[in-house]
């Protein structure tokens, strides 16, 4: 069980090398900076040091207990990230696939709306604009 908040890149492959020994099912999710408009050069992620770590730990603990996870990993970056870079990842290990899938989706849904990160898109002209929260992200929590 591990939570990491960092500005440095991470390597999904390397993170999985020691992950989930003894599990029958491992699910991973990675989020990557995507440029939908062709006008974005980077994403800047601001966060709330201290609260970020405790919020992520809390979310991961609840997922681990609810789905009997044998292992759980959350890595979230902050700072400036170029298009194509990985923003974050979660990994869940459980006995069966349904548990691993549900726990990973739960982690993502809560992380989106309950972990104190704020994204700002940086355009080619250097100007930044804050990404607005989607109502659908908040709605996603009701299924849990």
């Amino acid at each position: 069980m591990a939570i990491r908040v960092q500005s440095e890149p991470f390597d999904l492959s390397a993170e999985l090398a020691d992950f989930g020994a003894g599990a029958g099912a491992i699910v991973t999710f990675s989020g990557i900076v995507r440029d939908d408009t062709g006008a974005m050069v980077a994403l800047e992620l601001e966060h709330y040091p201290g609260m970020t770590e405790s919020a992520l730990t809390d979310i991961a603990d609840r997922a681990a207990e609810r789905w009997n996870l044998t292992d759980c990993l959350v890595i979230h970056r902050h700072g400036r990230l170029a298009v194509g870079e990985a923003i974050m990842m979660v990994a869940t290990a459980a006995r069966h696939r349904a548990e691993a899938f549900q726990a990973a989706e739960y982690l993502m849904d809560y992380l989106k709306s309950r972990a104190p990160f704020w994204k700002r898109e940086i355009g080619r002209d250097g100007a930044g604009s804050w990404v607005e929260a989607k109502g659908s992200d908040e709605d996603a929590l009701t299924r849990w």
Partner: protein
Amino acid sequence: MKLDVLYFAWLRERVGQPRERVETKAATVRDLVVELRAIDDYHDAALSDLTAVRVAVDQQLSDLDTPLADAREVAFFPPMTGG
């Protein structure tokens, strides 16, 4: 009571600073908002529409009615957009 007040994202930009230390007798977050808005136009603009503002008291998500007794740190920020 002395409180650290923190601002993030566009709230930080509107207020013009990431944190400040305030002396207050506010009983709840709602009372504190009234006092903060009175500081200057920047604070007033940042905190005028609370529908898009979230608050954490001592790093726990809270709301306007949360009491501030024994609180040390209050943070204001927009809805989160992590993941």
